[in-house]
């Protein structure tokens, strides 16, 4: 065989080998998941026919249905998805009652809709304790919705603690922005 052909084959083989070893040592290949028991998951149902889906600013290109989903209306109170908390507080303030009521009304009328409520904290303190504090915030919103008739099957309250701050940096402004629970459809 010609030298250059040999060299090309050797090179190709070596590159192939190195690629394999990179995948083995690197976590770019997905790790095998073996769930030992049924895992409760929140699934998001596909949009209604004619409903282009959720998300602010999506073009409401309704075809079959003539009524728009109020979740997509940026002017609707349902567009408000964040509830802010005072320092060391885990009580839903009065000013957010209308927001809670609006989402409760929507969810009780749309049994197919499910939400995840994400609690957050500011950056100060330990990760695990802040995870639990953030949970108190999402739980407060969940309970408020439950009291207005939203069933547990349509909600899950979880916490992101201080791990996913919306406002980075330190100082009262950033901290206040992160003391927050978000309703996510």
């Amino acid at each position: 065989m010609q030298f250059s052909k040999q060299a090309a084959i050797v090179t190709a083989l070596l590159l192939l080998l190195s690629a394999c070893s990179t995948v083995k040592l690197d976590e770019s290949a997905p790790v095998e998941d073996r769930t030992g028991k049924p895992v409760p998951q929140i699934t998001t149902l596909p949009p209604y026919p004619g409903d282009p889906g959720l998300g602010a600013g999506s073009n409401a290109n309704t075809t079959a249905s003539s009524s728009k989903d109020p979740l997509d209306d940026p002017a609707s109170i349902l567009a408000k998805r964040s509830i802010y908390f005072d320092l060391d507080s885990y009580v839903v303030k009065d000013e957010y009652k209308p927001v809670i009521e609006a989402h409760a009304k929507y969810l009780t009328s749309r049994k197919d809709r499910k939400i995840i409520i994400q609690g957050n904290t500011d950056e100060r303190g330990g990760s695990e304790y802040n995870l639990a504090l953030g949970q108190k915030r999402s739980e407060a919103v969940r309970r408020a919705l439950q009291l207005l008739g939203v069933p547990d099957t349509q909600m899950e309250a979880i916490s992101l603690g201080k791990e996913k701050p919306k406002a980075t940096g330190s100082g009262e402004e950033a901290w206040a922005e992160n003391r927050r629970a978000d309703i996510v459809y």
Partner: protein
Amino acid sequence: MKRYFLKLIAIANFLAVMPYAQAQLKVDISGVGANQIPISIASFADEPLTGHSISGIIRADLQRSGLFKIIESSEILNETAAVNLASWKAKGADAIVTGSVVKHSDDRIELRYKLADTVRTVDLAVHSVSTQSQFARLAAHKIADDIFEKLTGIRGAFATRIAYVSRSAGEYRLEVADSDGESAFVALRSSEPIISPTWSPDGTKLAYVSFELKKPVVYVQDLANRRRIVAANFKGSNSAPAWSPDGKKLAIALSREGLTQIYLINADGSDVKKLTRSNGIDTEPCFSPDGQSIYFTSDRSGGPQIYKMNLDGADLKRLTYGGTYNISPSVSPDGKMLAYISRREGKFQLHVLDLITSQEQRLTDTTHDESPSFAPNSRYILFATEASGQGSLTVVSIDGTAKYTLSAKASNIREPSWGPFSK
């Protein structure tokens, strides 16, 4: 044209046989013990055969411990060489280590060494460590462990590994490295946060919390075969895994009933039993070395404090009273000390509590300490801290004197966990 092609081949071949990028953490020593033993480590004969400086690894280990002062020597001395102990004593060394490397067939190496006491003019250790050549670094750490124990009476913890989470450019990596920060590899890469990694008692697995499913879920991952299971994904948040000393169970924090409380599950995720029942947050469980009780964080009294309780709920005891915020309990493997983070005057600082005398001591002057983890010999604490806005790891001796940091360029390192003694 042919020349260029050959050059390309040479480069490609070089890249192919080069090991995955050897990531390492930078070590900076910032504190030493009150009393240091002066010691000389001669270069081992034929150590270049291993591809490493065996004597260099041993010197660095002993230096990092803060208990040794390295008396430099440029000599190469094998363990059978006649050593003039008086002249080494005259150079200021209380002990001298000599050694050699022998290469055997089937890719095995043997590291032979001798530790001599120049003051009592006696040999303290004449040993060899045999291993596959790829474990040369581990063998060097084992020699350092032996030297450390012979001269201090304390079991060495150099032949151990640490796990931590490194973050840069929007990516989170769960990494495992040797205790000196070398040979780091990535166990998990994610675009979502990873927190609370913790070693199984046998050193083969890591339990950790990953947010990849957009909520906190506890996983258990086998480091060798890289398989993992979901240990806990109940409704709500799942976090703060802690292994029982026999490796069969995990204590975890779950919010499935509303408030975060501590539960016990099997390490394979089966069965779930509630352990705590309070009207506050109970989290961050940590098993006592005898496996009969847990230390944990609870804010049932109004603010977070550290408690101890039997697994059956009996004998509840509050342990911390200093200040209004005490979290992240970590008990030493010998059961004598408790490390934790206490907020005083707005500063989050590592403290240790003597569990017998109830004496408390602050160990750092930094302001953003987190996640303390004891070395398996109970003499050092690994924790996360922040310097100039960048997250790094610090190791401090339990008396607060010896100190060094492990950091990575342009990465935030957090959530450390010190692994067990290697088998």
